[in-house]
């Protein structure tokens, strides 16, 4: 019984939250890695792109709620999500047209594009704060739980409750769907293959008649979708605050780099690796140990390796370790 309790506690406080967080990071890292693979630079504006997409979705959610539209028990935000994606795609394509295209035509070095993306980051950051303000916004509605801790206890007779929040369940399901769609697109469709070809060898893609402008356009649209979905899922799971999204840049970059920049599979693996390490290292294992160890050995402390404030340190440490052992990342990305 104690073993079961320990497993449930572990599921409840580590595995489920880390899986949801990992899915969110993976979606974010996929966007970063796509831009790196096609446009050859790390986009510092990615966190703010996520914030922008989420903001549009939040505004649309409020509008829908105001009109009394609801898809309960699912959150209304899911209904607003397509609007968020479309508006974000329009913003990114507009940015590409006004900003990035100029540099592409001049064969600007990637590091110059990184600095350009800093400028875009400032603008997007300002834009989001200007429109919705810097404060925390909650926009989740519908049923809170798929599995309720109290009901689970009654049903199973265990001391430890298991809770699965709707947002977590939605995160995992949506991430699976999005990733499956993305891989189907990249591996099976002509356009997807042409994007992989472009990422692999730009000159030869050109000599095969692949239109670079089209590849870039589709990349931005996919990135808009990935960023908005990632942002909305994160916002549903936690809450929406522009600054938090900006700060997600570090774990997202860490995920993409750990997996191997330019490698979509790597981005997903990296996202989960970072998320699980963060949650495991910052979780207080007192409860789990309490079930497993005999009473005499029960720990006095929290059994927490690091306080949650140091979660950045975890992403960072994992990143350094992986790079020291394998400089190309787990899945041999483009970076050598």
């Amino acid at each position, binding site marked *: 019984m104690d073993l079961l309790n320990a497993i449930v506690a572990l599921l409840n406080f580590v595995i489920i939250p880390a899986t949801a967080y990992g899915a969110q990071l993976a979606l974010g890292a996929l966007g970063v890695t796509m831009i790196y693979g096609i446009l050859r630079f*790390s986009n510092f504006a990615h966190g703010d792109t996520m914030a922008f997409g989420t903001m549009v979705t939040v505004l649309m959610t409020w509008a829908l709620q105001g009109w009394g539209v609801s898809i309960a028990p699912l959150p209304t935000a899911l209904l607003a999500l397509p609007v968020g994606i479309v508006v974000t795609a329009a913003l990114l394509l507009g940015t590409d047209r006004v*900003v990035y295209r*100029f540099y592409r035509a001049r064969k600007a070095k990637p*590091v*110059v594009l*990184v*600095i*350009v993306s*800093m*400028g*875009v*980051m*400032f*603008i*997007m*950051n*300002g*834009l989001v*704060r*200007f*429109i919705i*303000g*810097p404060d925390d916004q909650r926009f989740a509605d519908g049923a809170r739980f798929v599995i309720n801790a109290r009901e689970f206890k009654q049903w199973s007779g265990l001391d430890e409750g298991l809770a699965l929040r709707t947002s977590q369940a939605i995160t995992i399901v949506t991430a699976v769907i999005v990733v499956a769609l993305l891989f189907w697109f990249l591996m099976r469709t002509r356009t997807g293959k042409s994007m992989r070809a472009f990422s692999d060898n730009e000159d030869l893609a050109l000599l095969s008649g692949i239109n670079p402008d089209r590849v870039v356009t589709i990349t931005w649209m996919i990135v808009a979708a990935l960023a908005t979905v990632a942002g909305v899922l994160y916002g549903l799971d936690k809450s929406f605050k522009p*600054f938090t999204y*900006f*700060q997600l*840049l*570090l774990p997202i*970059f*860490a995920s993409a*780099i750990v997996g191997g920049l330019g490698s979509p599979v790597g981005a997903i693996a990296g996202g989960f690796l970072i998320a699980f390490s963060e949650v495991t290292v910052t979780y207080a294992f007192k409860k789990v140990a309490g079930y497993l160890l005999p009473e005499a050995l029960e720990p006095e*402390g929290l059994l927490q*390796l690091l*306080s949650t*404030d*140091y979660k*950045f*340190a975890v*992403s*960072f440490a994992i*990143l*350094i370790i992986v*790079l*020291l052992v394998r*400089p190309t990342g787990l899945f041999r990305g483009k*970076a*050598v």
Partner: protein
Amino acid sequence: MTPAIKNTALFALVFGLILATGFLQSWNVALGILNMGLISAIMALGVNMQWGYAGLFNVGVMGFVALGGLGVVITSMAPVGEAWAAGGLRVIVALLTGAGTIAAAILAWKRLKRHRGLAVTAILVVGFFVYRWLFDPAVAAIEAVNPAREGYLGGLGLPVLLGWVVGGLLAAGAAWIVGKVALGLRSDYLAIATLGIAEIIIAVLKNEDWLSRGVKNVIGIPRPVPYEIDLQNDPGFVERAQAWGLDPVTFSSIAVKLAYAGLFVVVLLALVWLAELALNSPWGRMMRAIRDNEIAAEAMGKDVTLRHLQIFIIGSAVCGLAGAMMTTLDGQLTPGSYQPLRFTFLIWVMVIVGGSGNNWGAVLGGFLVWFLWVEVEPLGRLLMELVTAPMPEGFWLKDHLLESAAHMRLLTMGVILLLVLRFSPRGLIPER
């Protein structure tokens, strides 16, 4: 127009702007801009050394600036005897244990042939638990000492100017560690490494109350210049103020700011002089040779990694020095106020706008961008008032626009950066 005239004109323009602020707004604001402009110029100088001389992409400026601030605290604040007695020694032993563990792990990784993964893991795990066993009680004891006002170890009670040196050294030490790890690989990983280390440094300052009081802030840091209140109580000073027809209170605050400005100008000029000297020395020529053709430089037997490490450490130390000066100027260390947009990316805007690779460009960028950073806010509000003037009172859009005017500055900084990158990609004062 020769470059010399153009550059002089640009500097004249920036100081004209600051003077105009003095005449139109207030001298307090103008001198505030000047002082922070001087500090920003030094930060930009540090980043420019790394990016301009060597192409190193440091996005962790914030961390080095904050370490400089910590340097001031641990140097100049009075030691808290009670806290030291409660657990000072134990914390130090714990930190040494932690450092020893990491050193042992690195040594094991390098020396051992077999089972090294296992050995390193074992060393780290054991070391970690010993460290926590030593560290946790000591921290609890220290933080229990008069938590409302102290609850930390305090500093060494030395002169605050010495803290500037210590701040620079702290930043240099952190840069050494980061550089060692991130510059030695087959290709660099400096950007992500600095991005990470900066967040970690801020997290440490925010959470390690025994060291920096965390978000409770360290206030009342000693000053290298007189206090306003002392000046106001000095009859000689009051007499002089009245002789010039000035209010002693206003004059005292202006005098203090001018004193700071004097100190900062000395530091800035010394740094620019040194930087120019270094740039035109054989060392500087070699740095540029490496930057322009790394492969050729390597083939000629230059140790590129070592040179990059050197310049990274020097640049970070300069950022640390600037951070120390800023904390001194503020008179307080507020770990909660360090944000990457303000302390990392804004400095980058200064360097790019000013001119990468040119020290005077970086200085100009520091002043100009800081001026804009401060002045865009009132200007933005003015603009919004103009825009919303025709709207009826109480209209939601009017309220929203007026409320959001404060966020105009981020937008403006982005626009300025993009405009400069597009139309003057080498900056206002390009590299020669």
